[in-house]
C-alpha cells in the first residue's frame, strides 16, 4: 500500500511520547533529576498531541470518531483509549508536580502511565499484525515499534536534562547505545520474519529491502541515520572531558536521527504491506 504519512507520524510521535514517559517514570523511581520532570512531561504531552493530530488527518470523517467507543476490541479503540489514559497520567503528573505531591504519589502516577505507555507503544504496531498482509503478519513488527519508542524516549530524556553531570551523561550514553543495539536486533528479527513470511512475493521480500527498491531508504534512512549516527554521536561523548563532554546536544541530534529512522521504518513497512491478491 502507499506510505500513509499521517499514520507514519502518528505512530512515530506516539512512540516518542511513550518512550519519554517511560524514561520519566524511571527518573521518578530512581530520583536521577528533578529539573527534567516538568519539561519532560510537557514534551510528552506535545508528542502525544502531535501523534493524535496526525491520526486525525488520516480519517475521512473525524467528527464520527466517537462511534469507535462502542467497539472495544478494535485496534483503534485500544490505541485511542491508551492515548487517553497515558495523556491523563501525564497531566496528573504535571498537576502533582505543581502541587508538590508526595514522592509516593508521583511514583504511582508515573508507574501507571509508564505501563499504559508501554502497552500503547506496542499496540500502535500490533494493530498492523494481520493475515491479509504477509509482511505485517509477525509479532516482530510491534517489537520494532516498542524498541523505537524506548530509544527515542531515552534520547529525548537525555536531551532534556538540565546541566547534566559527567556521571549522568555517561549513564545515558551507555543506555542509548544499548537501546540502539536492541533496535537493530528487533529490525533484524523483522527481516528474518519477512524472509520466511508465507505467500512470498517480490513486492514484500527481504531482498527488496536489503538490495532492491527499498535498499536506499533502508541503508541510509534506518541503518545510517537511525542507528549508526545516534550510536556514534553519543559515543563521541566519552572522547573528551570538559564542557563539550557535558553537553547534551548530541542526544538532541541523536533524537532527530532516531526519529527519522523510526519514520523511515514505518514508510517501508507500509510499502511492503501488499495483500495476498490485489484485485484492483
Amino acid at each position, binding site marked *: *500500500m502507499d*506510505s500513509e504519512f499521517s499514520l507514519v507520524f502518528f505512530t512515530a510521535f506516539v512512540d516518542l511520547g511513550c518512550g519519554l514517559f517511560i524514561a520519566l517514570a524511571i527518573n521518578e523511581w530512581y530520583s536521577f533529576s528533578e529539573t527534567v520532570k516538568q519539561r519532560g512531561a510537557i514534551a510528552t504531552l506535545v508528542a502525544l498531541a502531535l501523534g493524535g493530530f496526525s491520526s486525525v488527518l*488520516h*480519517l*475521512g*470523517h*473525524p467528527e*464520527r*470518531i466517537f*462511534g*469507535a467507543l*462502542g*467497539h472495544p*476490541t*478494535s*485496534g*483503534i*479503540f485500544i490505541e485511542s483509549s491508551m492515548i487517553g489514559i497515558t495523556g491523563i497520567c501525564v497531566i496528573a503528573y504535571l498537576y502533582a508536580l505543581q502541587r508538590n505531591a508526595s514522592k509516593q504519589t508521583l511514583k504511582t502516577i508515573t508507574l501507571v502511565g509508564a505501563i499504559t505507555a508501554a502497552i500503547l507503544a506496542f499496540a500502535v504496531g500490533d*494493530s*498492523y499484525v*494481520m*493475515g*491479509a*498482509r504477509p509482511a505485517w503478519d509477525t509479532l516482530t513488527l510491534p517489537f520494532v515499534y516498542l524498541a523505537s519508542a524506548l530509544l527515542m524516549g531515552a534520547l529525548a530524556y537525555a536531551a532534556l536534562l538540565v546541566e547534566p553531570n559527567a556521571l549522568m551523561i555517561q549513564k545515558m550514553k551507555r543506555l542509548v547505545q544499548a537501546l540502539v543495539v536492541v533496535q537493530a536486533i528487533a529490525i533484524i528479527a523483522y527481516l528474518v520474519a519477512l524472509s520466511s513470511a508465507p*505467500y512470498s*512475493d*517480490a*513486492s*514484500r*521480500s527481504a531482498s*527488496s529491502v536489503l538490495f*532492491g*527498491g*527499498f535498499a*536506499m*531508504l533502508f541503508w541510509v534512512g534506518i541503518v545510517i541515520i537511525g542507528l549508526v549516527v545516534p550510536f556514534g554521536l553519543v559515543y563521541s561523548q566519552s572522547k573528551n572531558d570538559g564542557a563539550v563532554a557535558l553537553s547534551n546536544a548530541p542526544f538532541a541530534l541523536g533524537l532527530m536521527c532516531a526519529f527519522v529512522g523510526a519514520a*523511515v521504518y514505518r*514508510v*517501508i513497512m*507500509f*510499502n511492503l*504491506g*501488499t*495483500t*495476498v*491478491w*490485489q*484485485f*484492483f
Partner: protein
Amino acid sequence: MKKTMVIDLDRCIGCYSCEMACKMENDVALGVYYNKVLTIGPMGTYPDIQQYQLPTICQQCYNPTCVDVCPTGASFKAADGTVMVDKELCIGCKYCMMACPYGARSYNAEQKVVEKCTLCAHLTAVGEKPACVKVCCSKCRFFGDIDDPNSEVAKVLKEAGAENIHSLPDRGNHPSVKYILHRKTAQWQDLPPKETWRTPHQSGKKEEKRHG
C-alpha cells in the same frame, strides 16, 4: 443463511460486461472497481499454454477480517450473511481495507468513506439479481443462498463436483465466493502466477516498489 456468488470460469469469455454493468449500476468512480475481471496467465510453454479469466469481487467471507477490525461497526455482517458497509457510520480510517487479503475494498474520495461490492443489495432487496449476474452473456454468474440445498448456487456447485470448485487463498477470513474451473479448461492458480507477461494491473499481482 449465506447469500453469495458462484462464478463458472469454464464459461467466462472475458467480455468485461459485468465490470461495466457494476460500475454503471453502483456509480463507481473512475479508477475504482467493485468487480474486476483479471486475466490469469498465459502460463506454461507453447504449445501447452493455459489462461483463464477471474472475475473478482468482495468474497463475502464467513469470518470477515474487515468486520473484525472496524472500530465503529460500519462494516458488519447482515442477517443474510452478506458483508456490508454502513456509510453513515464509517469514519474513513481504511483499517478494513488493510485487513482484506484481496484489496476488495476501495476508498470513496468524494464521500470520504470505504465502499465495496454489496452484491447489489438494493436490487436483491426487491427480488432482482445483482447487475453483474443479470448482464453476464455466458450465464456464468450465480447468486443465492449457498446454505440452501435448493438454491441455484448450491445446485450448480453440486453439479460441478468438489474437485472443480475453488476458492481464493484463505487467511482466516474463509471466503464464501466459489469458482468453478475444470482442469480441461485450465489449472486453477491459488496465487497470481509469477511467470506471465501480464502486467500486475491485469493479473492482480503487486509490482515491486522502486521507492518508499
